[in-house]
């Protein structure tokens, strides 16, 4: 009897190995980044704590007495079912103000150009031995769009969900560190000093209300697989702009987004079990995710420079705007405005940057839908 009691109490201690201890340190590092460095604390803190929780002795938060534990229940109900990322999209849609884009619709082109990194990284990842589905999940990290990354990865490579999510959210929080050096390397000071004309005309209310509906229909005609992503994003936006659902819009932006973010973070951490996370593959994902991010930024900047070749001297675009075509909204536009002010304290390009940035949000969702549609087609032909 005594022997059994000793065995019972020692089982937990004996089940801890070096891998588990490494995961506690990684969890602690994520919590430190969230608290001390303020890097995406809403996500990195729950992910960090969840990483510790899931690697506790005997993994009881995942499974207990053969029954699913709380984290497994949340993971299945929220991540595998895609409920959490889609609910987040309602909140994101309700937070986005597309009106700067209506003033300058041509800036939508940057939402396309700044997603080239996703597809280029797929090719690079395949050259390093990843199959098409895994490569697509790694490439989509470059979109800087957490919910889209979750949905694509859940569809194609569930085993990689842990490392890909941690890498994706870490890089999203590192936009202020990753983008500026890339932009500076690709532009001259003269280009960064370019001022852009302010545009300000009245937007009819019917346009702002119709926009989410038109976007949903047009995008789903082109990419039907993206319907859940774009549909929920635009539903959130419709709540915001309709003008008669203030309470729902506010709930989507605040309570809903906060509750789901909280649950999403800790559920994602459920995929961070030591055996699945501590692999050489994780380092590869980190490197390739960074490459995707850099190529996306470069793609937007170089596209702006390309357009400038055809524009008269007075209408040139500040190429930094191109870098905002990624989905990290509004962080990317803030970073670009800060850079512009550093070179010229009177150069206000924020609204142009925001326009490119919100189109980047659309671009990442369309790109996600494209991967969901094209990858199985191409993989089927292997």
């Amino acid at each position, binding site marked *: 009897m005594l022997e059994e009691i000793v065995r019972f109490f020692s089982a937990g201690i004996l089940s801890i190995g070096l891998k588990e201890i490494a995961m506690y340190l990684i969890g602690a590092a994520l919590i430190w980044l969230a608290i001390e460095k303020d890097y995406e604390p809403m996500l990195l803190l729950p992910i960090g704590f969840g990483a510790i929780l899931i690697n506790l002795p005997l993994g009881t938060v995942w499974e207990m007495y053969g029954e699913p534990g709380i984290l497994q229940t949340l993971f299945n109900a929220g991540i595998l079912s895609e409920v959490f990322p889609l609910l987040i999209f309602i909140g994101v849609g309700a937070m986005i103000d597309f009106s700067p884009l209506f003033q300058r619709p041509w800036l939508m082109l940057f939402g396309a150009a700044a997603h080239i990194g996703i597809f280029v990284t797929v*090719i690079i990842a*395949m050259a390093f031995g990843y199959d*098409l589905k895994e490569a697509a999940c790694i490439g989509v990290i470059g979109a800087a769009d957490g919910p889209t990354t979750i949905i694509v990865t859940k569809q194609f490579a569930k085993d990689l969900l842990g490392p890909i999510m941690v890498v994706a959210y870490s890089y999203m929080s590192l936009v202020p560190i990753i983008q500026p050096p890339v932009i500076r390397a690709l532009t001259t000071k003269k280009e960064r000093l370019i001022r852009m004309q302010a545009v300000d005309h009245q*937007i009819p209310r*019917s346009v702002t209300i119709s926009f989410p509906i038109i976007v949903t229909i047009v995008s789903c005609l*082109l990419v039907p697989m993206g319907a859940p992503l774009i549909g929920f994003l635009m539903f959130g936006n419709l709540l915001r702009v309709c003008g008669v659902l203030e309470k729902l819009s506010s709930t989507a932006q605040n309570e809903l987004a906060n509750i789901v973010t909280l649950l999403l973070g800790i559920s994602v951490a459920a995929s961070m079990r030591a055996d699945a996370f501590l692999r050489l593959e994780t380092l590869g994902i980190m490197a390739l995710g960074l490459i995707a991010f850099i190529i996306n930024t470069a793609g937007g900047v170089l596209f702006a420079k390309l357009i400038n070749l055809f524009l008269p001297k007075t209408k040139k675009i500040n190429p930094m705007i191109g870098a905002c075509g990624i989905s990290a909204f509004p962080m990317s536009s803030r970073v670009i405005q800060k850079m512009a002010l550093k070179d010229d304290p009177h150069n206000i390009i924020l609204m142009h940057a925001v326009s490119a940035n919100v189109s980047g949000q659309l671009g990442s969702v369309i790109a996600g839908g494209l991967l969901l549609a094209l990858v199985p087609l*191409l993989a089927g032909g292997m």
Partner: protein
Amino acid sequence: MAQIEQGLILLAVGMAVLFIFMGLMIVILHYFQKIAARFSPKD
């Protein structure tokens, strides 16, 4: 080699669809704004 080919197809089709979507939205927004402005009540 076949894998790289798949990646290139994905790149070409993906970027083409993205630009087509954005282009379509620019055209729709441009004309829709004009039409909406014409029919919106004037002060």
